[in-house]
């Protein structure tokens, strides 16, 4: 069976045509049927989305003065797929970033999201490190720099406890609010930065770039490359305007330098925090650079605990500043007659124990006002015992003791308000003595408060029960539109207290400052009538703590404050002079409308 050449040719041509048609069919399938899909794939190959960080909102004071702003800094990135091949690079980088090659390797391995996705290995590096790395850039394959911003505090206000700080987002936070964050991003960790993270952060933008097979950026893509490659700019974060008065804060920070303690000044009209100083503190700039373990350990192990916000986080016995609670509870329950006198020989014997008054020789005969003015312990021992723990703790609770004030700062301490239930729990039912009430009546014993709670207490008395939740943020400013959104203050009513009671207590506090035997004469300011109460809290660990709380002007209170000096010795000696500074500063700078006639109020 021999085929003709022509037949063979037909067989060959047919076979060839058959094979070519199969090929064409395959090409048609790949290019026409699945073309869109492969185009998608090709774009996935070449297009990388670069996140553009939004500028973070600033922190300003009540007058708009900028307190915390952004300044440019450099971040170091490493491309995992490229840096692997150059071991000497690790030496150079680790030297510049003050770490070890092993740590960098570990960090890259942990944060790697692909061979050609850069990992941020150093943030906010200083200029020296930047120059060092830049000089040896040729040896640093796969290492790149990007600008980023760094928080700066160039306006003389440190307030690190208040502002808080930013730090790299943790894995837990990342899984919690992942959408707007990527590994290596900064997030507010403490203070206002944390509280108003969502306001100040803004929304990330995106930019599309074309990369080659090695992941190197070739060019920026624009709308001309297709609608979907249009970059969207970041939405900047909003500014947070605090109620803070920067000048007052600055003055107080300077005044309290070297002391352990602080001061809180509140606006009586809305609860704004006008100043909040806790000393010792630390330089917030430390946290806006790479925080080395040495610095961190130094701060953490400092016996003076600079990381603690003493005004909000620390608790102390309030001492005599708490006597107003005993007075109010007694007056409201009818157990104290304001005219009833008590003789103070300088001590009080109860249950076989001697309770001392702070004045060795005694105050003699005192009624309620005299006892407040001179801070007579004996009077309050007796009245406190009469009022009893249940009434006392009931009224203290009405003023918010034992609970957080709700200020817009995380990690606020609630303090401790002993109640019958608490003491039963702690010491066993009926296992605690009635004498315990004597100590509580003068603000000692198991009672613990924060200075912020005491400032709120002062504001509540000043406003006769119409109080406010203390707050840092006053408004939010959109830097683009210039619109400022004010936040309504949260009012807090302390109910069930008669006007006569308020008047008596305030009258007593007036005498503390203005009376001839008042303990706070050192807080007195010419031309301004104020009221207050000193406290000297016994402290088993050392010198007593000095307290002073108050408000001014007396007839129309605009500010309330609490000054607290740890181991200051006494309230009148250590705290009252600071209050005087506060008041005279406000008066001199016309931040208070003064009440000139002291006698008017005195009557």
């Amino acid at each position, binding site marked *: 069976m021999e085929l003709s050449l022509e037949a063979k040719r037909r067989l060959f041509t047919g076979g060839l045509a058959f094979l070519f048609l199969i*090929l064409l069919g*395959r090409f048609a399938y790949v290019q026409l049927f699945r073309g869109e899909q492969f185009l998608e794939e090709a774009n996935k190959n070449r297009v990388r989305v670069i996140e553009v960080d939004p500028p973070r909102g600033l922190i300003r004071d009540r007058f708009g003065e900028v307190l915390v702003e952004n300044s440019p800094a450099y971040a170091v990135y490493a491309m995992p797929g490229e840096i692997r091949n150059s071991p000497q690079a690790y030496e150079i980088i680790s030297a510049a970033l003050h770490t070890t090659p092993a740590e960098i390797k570990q960090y890259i391995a942990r944060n790697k999201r692909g061979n050609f996705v850069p990992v941020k290995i150093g943030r906010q590096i200083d200029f020296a490190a930047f120059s060092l790395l830049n000089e040896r850039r040729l040896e640093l394959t796969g290492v790149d720099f990007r600008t980023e911003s760094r928080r700066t505090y160039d306006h003389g206000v440190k307030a690190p406890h208040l502002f808080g700080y930013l730090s790299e987002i943790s894995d837990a936070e990342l899984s919690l609010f992942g959408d707007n964050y990527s590994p290596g991003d900064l997030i507010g960790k403490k203070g206002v930065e944390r509280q108003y993270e969502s306001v100040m952060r803004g929304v990330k933008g995106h930019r599309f770039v074309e990369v080659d097979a090695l992941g190197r950026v070739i060019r920026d893509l624009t709308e001309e490359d297709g609608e979907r490659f249009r970059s969207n700019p970041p939405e900047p974060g909003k500014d947070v305007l605090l109620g803070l008065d920067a000048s007052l804060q600055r003055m107080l920070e300077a005044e309290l330098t070297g002391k352990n303690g602080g001061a809180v000044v509140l606006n009586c009209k809305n609860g704004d925090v006008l100043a909040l100083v806790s000393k010792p503190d630390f330089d917030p700039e430390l946290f806006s650079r790479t925080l080395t373990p040495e610095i961190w350990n130094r701060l953490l192990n400092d016996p003076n605990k600079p990381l603690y916000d003493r005004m909000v986080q620390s608790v102390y016995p309030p001492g005599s500043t708490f006597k107003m609670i005993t007075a109010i509870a007694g007056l409201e329950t009818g157990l104290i007659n304001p005219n009833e006198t008590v003789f103070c020989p300088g001590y009080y014997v109860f249950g076989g124990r001697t309770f001392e008054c702070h004045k060795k020789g005694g105050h003699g005969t005192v009624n309620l006002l005299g006892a407040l003015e001179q801070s007579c312990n004996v009077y309050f021992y007796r009245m406190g015992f009469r009022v009893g723990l249940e009434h006392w703790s009931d009224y203290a609770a009405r003023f918010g003791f034992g609970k957080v004030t709700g200020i817009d700062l995380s990690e606020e301490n609630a303090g401790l308000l002993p109640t019958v239930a608490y003491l039963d729990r702690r010491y066993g039912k009926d296992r605690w003595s009635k004498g315990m009430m004597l100590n509580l009546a003068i603000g000692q014993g198991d009672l613990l408060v924060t200075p912020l709670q005491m400032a709120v207490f002062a504001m509540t008395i000043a406003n006769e029960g119409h109080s406010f939740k203390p707050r840092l943020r006053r408004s939010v400013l959109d830097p683009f539109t210039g619109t400022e959104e004010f936040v309504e203050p949260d009012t807090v009513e302390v109910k069930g207290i008669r006007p006569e009671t308020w008047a008596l207590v305030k009258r007593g506090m007036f005498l503390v400052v203005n009376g001839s035997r008042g303990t706070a004469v050192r807080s007195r300011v010419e031309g301004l009538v104020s009221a207050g109460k000193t406290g000297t809290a016994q402290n088993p660990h050392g010198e007593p703590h000095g307290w002073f709380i108050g408000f001014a002007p007396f007839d129309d209170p605009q500010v309330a404050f609490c000054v607290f000096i740890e181991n200051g010795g006494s309230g009148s000696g250590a705290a009252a002079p600071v209050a005087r500074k506060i008041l005279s500063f406000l008066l001199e700078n016309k931040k208070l409308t003064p009440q000139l006639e002291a006698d008017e109020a005195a009557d």
Partner: protein
Amino acid sequence: MLARSIISWKDIDKVIIVCVLLLVTIGLMAIYSTTSSPASSEAIRHSFAKQVIWFLAGAMIASAVVLTPVQYLKGMAYSLYGLCVVLLILVLFAGGGKGVHRWFILGPVHFQPAEPTKIAALLALARYLSDERRDLRSFKDIGICFAMVLVPTVLILKEPDLGTAIVMASLLLPVLFWAGLSPFIVFLVVSPILTVISAFNVYTFGAAMLLIIGVLVLSKRKLPVLLAVLMLNVSVGALTPSLWNRLKDYQKTRILTFIGLQQDPRGTGYQVAQSQVAIGSGGFWGKGWTRGTQAKLRFLPEQHTDFIFSVVGEELGFWGVTLVLVTFFVLLWRALGIAVSAKNKFLTLMVVGCVTLIGVHVIVNTGMTVGIMPVTGIPLPFLSYGGSSLWTNMTLVGLILNAGVRRFQY
């Protein structure tokens, strides 16, 4: 002067020349495109100019081949073949490269003896089969033909160069068939290949066996012949695993990836995947010349050599792919016309060999870029970058044209 007296311009097949010029032009365009990328390495940037020079040299080679009298071609066929086999043996010992022995490296020149071997083998085969004394029913004569092809094939496999070996081996059956070998014998040879391919899977193996039995029954052969052929195929199928184990790992990987049993995204699979992405993303009209992102950004490996067709597919789209394939088809179809009309048996067999070599290259290479052929590393004629490949193919075209102008000679 001798040449002019023998051939005239009007006898030259202009269609074939146009086809070649078109293919080379598209190839140069694609090579230019790959060199215009900012991501291109220094070596690639010069390849366009080099390819132009190689083409000009190749055109001269082709002209010389056209002018060479048949007697010379036929006369030197055996000695050329012998020389090539010697070179193939030598290259195994003296060849350069790490683990592979494909090239003689003489300074800047890399000479790959497998390339001229393809031509030498086809000339030798054509000369052997054009002898009137050959009897294609004789085991001896067929055996010699097999040996002529298999010796260089095995040597090339040793280099190792699976792609060229496949091309080499593919020469045998079409030429033998053209020379008059019984289709049944062709089937006898093809069926074990089918068996080997199908042996990886019980179902495909069963289907292949049924097909073979069907053809045997239809061919009305005697039962013993039928059983013998069947036994042969079953034993080949059974032997396949042990033969499989003798393959090099990278060869196994290629084959496994090809038949979809192994995912190899970093190696061969990556190339094919990126090539398909390139071609597919071209759609019907393509992304436009020099605007292929896959090629320019170097996601496509070996884009100016073995995967040049992916660049065509990406930048010129389906119509460009069709143009190239149709052009190849026209070229081969015209060549087959010459093969039919050539009166000289040597010439007609020579042309069929040329058609086979070009056709196998085109089908395997383009099929590889869309994932329906294994990645064997063979170039696309006239389009792929590379001097030796271009010269080989220009020589083949020269041989076809040579037969065309002499088709009436006996």
